């Protein structure tokens, strides 16, 4: 674990000491090297499930795919930010990259944590760089409001979690994940225990986000700069899912009855947010709501606590992370050219930017879960396990799949096909950097079709 953490921390002196014209190149190259190094974690050799352990951090098949996703995304974030940051003075560029690196360090420590309190502290710690990125480098005046919503929704959910964790530490004597998986199930019957259960889960449900408490997400995504959107969509949402999966180990057997309202909210949210997507005019907002929709499916899969549900949740999280980030990058290419996110202004791009249209095509197909892409694997696993839990869920999940297909195709057709408006003819052609960015997002998705065992996690 230290092999990855120390080079990531050393990226900070790198950004501040390299001469001005080499900053972006060196940071991208070094973070790419770290990402490739993190791929060695995927080799699962240990029997107990936990490997590469240190005193406080370890990896297991649940956290490894998310860790690799995080490390993979850092060079992509730096690549994506290059264009819109370049007019700023060099020290501000350096502080931006430093913030991204700090966020990365906290994320690695969060995913690798074995003590739940350490996970909690890192979970909260990721809020600060994200908040600074959104409020300082966002594009519109609403970004302050977005930052406040973001911070307060997440904190209001996670402070009860802190109290709940401290109560657990008093009762069980430890909060190490290695030990908790072997303790006897606790007898949880009273009202106070039910409130404790809600306290544990609420933070992660807000982060996921669950449909009722999802208001911070579209605001935060729309106002954030591209790297902020990428990391928010791809990784920070998965922190919520990962936390939920870790916490539910100790929450049995209450979860069977208490999870009903949240599962219903999640399923209803899939349909509602999907329908909102169909009527959106703002491209980034569309992608943000599609994130909520997919995460609703993940939340449903985790809350029913079946092996296939968990597996589907992890696969969908990884696949959604890559694809959602890819879609945000594509939206950003549009934004950088026209400085507007309105869908109507960037129509008919296939005529002008044909190669980018290919990437749009693949990303949208992945979003609507085309076989054999991993998005479908995840969705199918979750839908099947939800069906076996209760046959009525097929109504909402089936409808949700249909609506997802609807808005993904809508997004594709609106941006690519159709008559080209006259004002877009003079747009810049695509940079190689942008093509590289999209390729690096989508090639892992395609490769994961060939070996999905890398993502399957604990339950196979």
């Amino acid at each position, binding site marked *: 674990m230290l092999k990855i953490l120390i080079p990531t921390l050393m990226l900070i002196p790198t950004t501040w000491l390299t001469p001005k014209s080499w900053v972006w190149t060196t940071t991208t190259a070094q973070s790419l090297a770290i990402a490739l190094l993190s791929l060695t974690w995927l080799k699962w050799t240990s029997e107990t499930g936990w490997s590469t352990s240190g005193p406080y951090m370890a990896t297991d098949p649940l956290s490894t795919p998310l860790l690799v996703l995080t490390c993979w995304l850092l060079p992509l974030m730096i690549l994506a930010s290059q264009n819109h940051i370049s007019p700023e003075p060099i020290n501000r560029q350096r502080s931006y990259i430093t913030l991204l690196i700090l966020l990365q360090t*906290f994320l690695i420590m969060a995913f690798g944590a074995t003590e739940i309190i350490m996970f*909690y*502290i*890192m979970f*909260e*710690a990721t*809020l*600060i760089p994200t908040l600074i990125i959104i409020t300082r480098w966002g594009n519109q005046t609403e970004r302050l409001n977005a930052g*406040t919503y973001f*911070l*307060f929704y997440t*904190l*209001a959910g996670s*402070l*009860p979690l*802190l*109290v*709940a964790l*401290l*109560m657990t*530490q*008093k009762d069980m004597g430890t909060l190490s994940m290695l030990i908790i998986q072997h303790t006897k199930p606790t007898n949880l019957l009273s009202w*106070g225990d039910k409130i*404790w259960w809600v*306290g544990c889960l609420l933070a992660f449900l807000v982060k996921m986000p669950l449909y009722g408490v999802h208001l911070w997400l579209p605001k935060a995504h729309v106002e954030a700069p591209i790297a902020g959107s990428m990391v928010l969509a791809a990784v920070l949402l998965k922190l919520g899912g990962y936390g939920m999966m870790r916490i539910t180990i100790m929450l049995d057997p209450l979860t069977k009855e208490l999870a009903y309202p949240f599962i219903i909210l999640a399923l209803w949210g899939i349909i509602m947010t999907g329908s909102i997507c169909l009527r959106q005019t703002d491209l980034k907002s569309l992608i943000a709501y599609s994130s909520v929709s997919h995460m609703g499916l993940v939340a449903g899969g985790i809350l029913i606590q079946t092996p296939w549900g968990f597996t589907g949740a992890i696969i969908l999280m990884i696949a959604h992370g890559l694809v959602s980030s890819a879609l945000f990058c594509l939206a950003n290419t549009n934004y950088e050219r026209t400085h507007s996110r309105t869908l109507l202004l960037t129509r008919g791009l296939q005529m002008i930017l044909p190669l980018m249209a290919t990437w749009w095509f693949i990303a949208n197909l992945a979003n609507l879960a085309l076989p054999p892409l991993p998005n479908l694997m995840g969705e199918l696993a979750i839908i099947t396990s939800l069906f076996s839990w209760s046959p009525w869920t097929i109504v909402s999940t089936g409808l949700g799949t249909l609506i997802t297909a609807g808005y993904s195709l809508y997004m594709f057709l609106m941006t690519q096909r159709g008559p080209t408006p006259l004002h877009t003819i003079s747009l810049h052609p695509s940079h190689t950097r942008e093509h590289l960015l999209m390729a690096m997002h989508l090639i892992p998705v395609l490769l994961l079709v060939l070996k999905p065992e890398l993502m399957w996690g604990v339950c196979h």
Partner: protein
Amino acid sequence: WFLAWMGLEINTMAIIPLMAQQHHPRATEATTKYFLTQATAAAMILFASTMNAWTMGDWNINQISHPLATTTVTLALALKIGLAPMHFWLPEVLQGLNLTTGLVLSTWQKLAPFALILQISQNTNPALLTTLGVTSALVGGWGGLNQTQLRKLLAYSSIAHLGWMIIILQFMPALTLLNLTIYITMTSTMFLSLKIMASTKINSLALAWPKTPTLTTLIMLSLLSLGGLPPLTGFMPKWLILQELAKQDLPITATIMAMSALLSLFFYLR
């Protein structure tokens, strides 16, 4: 007790001329208010200790055991440091002072009463302390929400932090000391940075970025730390206090305190 009272009176007397340095009517008004409140509190302390000596025959500070005496002394000391519901003097007094004197008021002046509070901590009424603590945290949070004057903001933040310190007094006085120390450090940072930038309102803070970007980053970090966000140091006392409260099976109190920290955070963020 007699010597303690004398010490507190001398402390008050010494700081009065310091506060009245500026010949501004608001400064004079603030000085008068401060003098009145502190004198009242000191008189109450004398009264309570005399009552204790009369009924129990004991002048020792840590053996003040008559229940009425302990309650009176606790309330008097609370008035001295500005805990709710005896906090009403603090924002206005702080507003009337310039930043350096305000710094002294918030940090150094708290040390003496706290020394006394720590010494009587075994005998105090737990319900009283909990009420004082929770009320202070909530009042500090809500009162600061509508403020634009930085000194009043810091006054309300002081009230909230004092609430946190008091609530753990009954279980682990060492944590009270830790919280006090960290709070003094953070508040000194805030006051001194505000003095360097010579700003007293939120509007003037907004213009600080072009002047001294490093200092502004420092201010932001120290504000977030005052708010108690991990992984900054300000989180540590809050975490330990919540842990101690949880160990004592007081989850509801812990949750209320945690939520009121959110209120304070909101006005720090502005």
